[in-house]
């Protein structure tokens, strides 16, 4: 029978059919961070259970660590230090590899895992973090779980999984210059809604997806969780193999050849049937920005805030009114030109080298508008070092951006640093929820290019208004 990529990986990892659509699935990699991983390791130890295969488990510090230069274990977030030290001690006791503060490999979990080739095509990988779906970009089945499930995976090298449904989104054609994977992700959210892929593994396919580099694919897959998807996946190809070859945890020599031969079979069969199959034209995708408090509340950058009548298939009248009120916007108001207080480039969505390069290309020779606080947080130590080697740090600093240490930083407010109440922030992150980046903060999601252009303009701006 014809199989999707998902079917192939599922079948390969099915230890036992538990009946009623649930499988006992082998887990190849578990990733942890100090926010939710420390508690899982501690709880496991308290229950007297061991990590069954510590060599296949990795931990990093990203969520509560400071990102200011000169950082230590002390955090601006009250009680943050306890998360760092607990995770460090638990990781050591369990014998798992930790990318600790000061380690050049440290960074956001979904940035460093591909960099280190911890994630490989065809693997199952889980992490107690919703954006784990990012890593499907390399052809792995990677999904976010809770802490209890993390304990289960650590203790048993398996998870009990309700088999998800399958969805394919084929993006034909070519993305226009200046249209990014982030714009595509927001386009899909606006089109299909924040529960549009509920319970599905979404396979992204088509010429526009195949044309993306690995970093672009990571951005696209990253926001599948905003879609309520189980995960996202892209068939691994030469682009992925070339990216992985020679990286620290990639197989080497004859084993590499053998692995690639197997990975090359990880494409959905031509006659495979998906539970849901959508087709999207790349030519219809334009730069996007969110106006509301759900990622589905996104519009083309040049458009105005929609009237309720135009989005009534998606939102209730109350949700629409509540989002407008929170964001301090009115129906029909132009988004371009809305004055901003801050600009943020970072997160597991858009803090990789290519993101920083594209933002820097706009910032070069320009300066952030007066009164705008602008922050750039590279996604990992490796991204930061590579960016500095080609002088990107100077471009950001000269433009008036802060240049930070790697971590999740102000993608979310954990009680430490935040943007202010009613402050309008243009941000390359993934969630525009109420108070996500600070109590009462108004977040507008966009590509790094749009964030950079807006920072220069002091208002939400399109690329061509600045560059």
């Amino acid at each position, binding site marked *: 029978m014809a199989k999707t990529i998902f079917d192939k990986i599922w079948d390969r990892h099915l230890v*036992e059919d*538990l009946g*009623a659509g649930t499988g006992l699935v082998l887990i190849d990699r578990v990733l942890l961070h100090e926010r939710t991983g420390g508690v899982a390791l501690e709880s496991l130890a308290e229950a007297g259970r061991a990590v069954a295969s510590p060599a296949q488990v990795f931990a990093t510090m990203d969520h509560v660590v400071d990102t200011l230069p000169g950082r230590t274990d002390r955090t601006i977030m009250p009680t943050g230090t306890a998360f760092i030290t607990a995770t460090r001690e638990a990781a050591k006791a369990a014998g798992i590899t930790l990318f600790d503060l000061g380690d050049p490999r440290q960074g956001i979990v979904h940035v460093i895992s591909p960099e280190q080739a911890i994630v490989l095509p065809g693997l199952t990988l889980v992490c107690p973090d919703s954006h784990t779906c990012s890593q499907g970009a390399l052809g792995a089945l990677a999904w976010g779980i*809770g802490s209890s499930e993390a304990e289960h995976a650590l203790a048993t090298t398996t998870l009990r999984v309700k088999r998800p449904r399958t969805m394919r989104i084929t993006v034909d054609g070519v993305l226009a210059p200046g249209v990014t994977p982030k714009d595509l992700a927001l386009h899909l959210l606006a089109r299909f809604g924040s529960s549009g892929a509920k319970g599905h593994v979404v396979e992204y396919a088509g010429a526009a997806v195949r044309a993306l580099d690995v970093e672009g694919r990571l951005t696209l897959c990253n926001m599948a969780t905003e879609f309520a998807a189980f995960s996202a996946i892209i068939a691994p190809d030469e682009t992925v193999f070339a990216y992985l070859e020679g990286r620290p945890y990639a197989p080497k020599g004859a084993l590499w050849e053998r692995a690639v031969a197997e990975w090359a079979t990880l494409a959905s069969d031509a006659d495979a049937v998906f539970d849901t199959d959508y087709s999207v034209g790349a030519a219809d995708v334009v730069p996007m920005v969110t106006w509301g408090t759900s990622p589905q509340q996104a519009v083309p950058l040049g458009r105005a805030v929609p009237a309720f009548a135009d989005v009534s298939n998606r*939102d209730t009248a109350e949700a629409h009114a509540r989002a407008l009120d929170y964001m301090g916007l009115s129906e029909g108001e132009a988004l371009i030109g809305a004055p901003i207080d801050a600009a943020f480039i970072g997160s597991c969505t858009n803090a990789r080298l290519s993101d920083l390069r594209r933002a820097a290309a706009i910032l070069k020779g320009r300066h952030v508008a007066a009164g705008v606080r602008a922050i750039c947080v590279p996604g990992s130590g490796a991204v930061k070092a590579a960016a500095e080697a080609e002088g990107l740090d100077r471009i950001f600093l000269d433009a008036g951006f802060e240049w930070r240490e790697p971590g999740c930083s102000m993608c979310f407010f*954990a009680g430490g640093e935040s943007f202010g109440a009613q402050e309008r922030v243009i941000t390359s992150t993934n969630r525009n929820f109420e108070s*996500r980046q600070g109590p009462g903060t108004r977040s507008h999601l966009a590509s790094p290019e749009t964030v950079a252009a807006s920072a220069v303009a002091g208002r939400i701006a399109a690329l061509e208004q600045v560059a």
Partner: protein
Amino acid sequence: MTPFTTLTSIAVPLIRDNIDTDAIIPSREMKTVGKTGLADGLFAGWRYTAVGGRTPEPGFVLNDPAYAGAAILLGGANFGCGSSREHAAWALAEYGFRAVIAPSFNPIFRGNCVRNGIVPIELEAGAFASAPQPLAIDLPAQTVTDAAGAVMPFAIDEEAKAMLVGGLDAIDLTLIKRDAIAAFRKADAVQRPWAYL
């Protein structure tokens, strides 16, 4: 985990779509590494008048005495979206909620509920929200009965139901199969050696 069979309780309506786990338990309220001490922070951004404060916001439904002691929460579509933080389920359970009724749930949040003895029930919750009323949940029968006696059936996957009704620990259940898992891994390591570090 406490087994769940039946429950009769007032249901408190918070019928908004896309209630995210940041709203259920703001990150700033996750102050300790453990799983406890979270009930105070439940819905903190809406429940209190100021960030970090504990003065009840009178307009917020959890502060309405008519719903005191409610163990059932009524929500909107895509309930529990966003961050995978299990703290959302821990906070709800510690506060006293044993069931959430919503038209749809985020899949990670739904799993976290099941692992913590909270029954996620997929039903249009608006029907129960008109006035404070007790609802009777019968999980083995998969029904919700309202104050007027109307019975609504709901679907739940068998694994989740068995876990909740039995109060089972998933790790214990799986560890029974540890020999089968070891044998599977041994054979698999020959086929996919690169997967094993």
